Structure formats: C-alpha cells, structure tokens
C-alpha cells in the first residue's frame, strides 16, 4: 500500500517537470513583448517566472490540503 502511494507521489512529482519548459517559455515570450533590450527581457522574465511558480505552488498547496 505504502509502496504504491510512494509510486504515485513520485509520478506526480515527475510530472511537475513538464511545467518547467512552459514557465520558462511563457515568461520569456511575455517579457519579450514588453521590452526590446535583452537585459530588460531577462530581468522581467525572471520575475515573471518566479511569480508564476509561486502562484502554482500556492494553488498546489491549497489543493493538497483540501485533498488531504
């Protein structure tokens, strides 16, 4: 029982990696539509990625507690 739960937990964690390219690409493209210089784009993209990841983490935490 515990092994199967761990397996599913592992599978769910692995699936989170699929969010990484999405966060990176969306942040970069969004930032690039607001700036022209690469330094400004990268700065904006970084803050955007942090904001998005934080938002996803908060939603996940809420769902985690609701599910538990």
């Amino acid at each position: 029982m515990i092994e199967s739960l761990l397996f599913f937990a592992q599978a769910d964690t692995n699936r989170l990696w699929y969010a990484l390219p999405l966060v990176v690409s969306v942040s970069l493209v969004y930032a690039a539509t607001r700036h022209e210089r690469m330094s400004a784009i990268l700065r904006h993209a970084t803050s955007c990625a942090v904001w998005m990841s934080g938002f996803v983490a908060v939603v996940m935490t809420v769902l985690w507690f609701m599910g538990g």
Partner: protein
Amino acid sequence: MTDPATTNEEPADASEEFEQVDLKNPLLAAGLALLLPGLGHLYQQRYAKAVLFMVCILPMYFFGWSIGGGKVVYAQWRPNAPILEQRWHYVCQFWTGVPAWPALVQTMFNQPFGDEFMVAPELSDRFGGGNEESDWHAQYHGYYELGTVYTMIAGILNLLVIFDAVGGPIGSVIRSDEEKKKLAAKNIPAATAEARAKS
C-alpha cells in the same frame, strides 16, 4: 522636486522605459510572424527577439505534438455536438502558423496529406463503446492532454508575438522617419524627448 520636462536632465530609466523600435512594414511583419514564430522579427531585423521566439515557441509546439503521439493537432467541426464540445483547441493551435495549418487543410480538402497526419478522429461509436478519440486518450493517458496544452499555449504565445511585430513592445516609441530627423536635428535623444513628453 525638479520637473524633467523643464530641465535637461534625463531620467535614469528613460532609455529602459522608452525603447525605440523600427517596425518597417508592420502588416508584412505580422503576416510573417503568423507564418512562423519569429519570422516577422527577423524581417524587422530584431534578431535577438526573433531567435528567442523561435527557440521558445517552436520546440514547445513540436514537443507537445510529439508527446501527444502526433494526434493532438487537428481541426474538426462536430455537427451534432454541443458548442462546448467542439474542437476549440485548434483555435489556439492555429496561431502557431505553418506547423499547425496542415490540420486545417486535412479537414477542408479531404486529407491530401494522407489519413494519418493531423487527421481528425472518427467520432462514430464502436461496438463496446468509445471512439477513436477515446482510444487516443487511453493510449497516451495524460500526455494527450499535456500535448494539447503545450500546442495551444504555443499558439497563444505566437499571437502575442504577432502583436509585438505590429505594435512593438508595450511602452516602446514608434517614430516616423521625419520625427527621427527632427529630433536628430535638435540633437535630442529620442528617449529623453519621450520621457519629457510623458512627464
């Protein structure tokens, strides 16, 4: 407090906030951006952004297409289905450009590229329940949905890119050649002039 409009001081962030962009022919750039992400920016000689858009959007689209088994991009109108059960995903995917358009051609012109590539699923129920689309879901599990999301987001992002090709980045200054000449004659950096005007 000193008013920058009445002094010669340039705001510290003026060069950052008011970036000048030469959009050449914006409509042509938009058309090219619609064909392929980054192509419009390549035409506008905004090379760094062109590469950035290509590197971000195209791999995302093809990765999504790949993990969904090449089945996630198709166009289909289901005559008897409710409006919310139509294939609206393709409305987003379409904006990726040429990589997504064969799906539309396949549907509109009776599958000129064969019956495997970007073809809409058979929707008739089979004996024992289910149809071809439910088979795809069963075969690819969550990756079918994930691939659909990747390809949809790629299309939506390219829509932003098209807007950027037409209007430049938000906060940028679009100047005609005449205005640029006037500013050059007065020896005023355009960014400073814009900062003064805004303040």
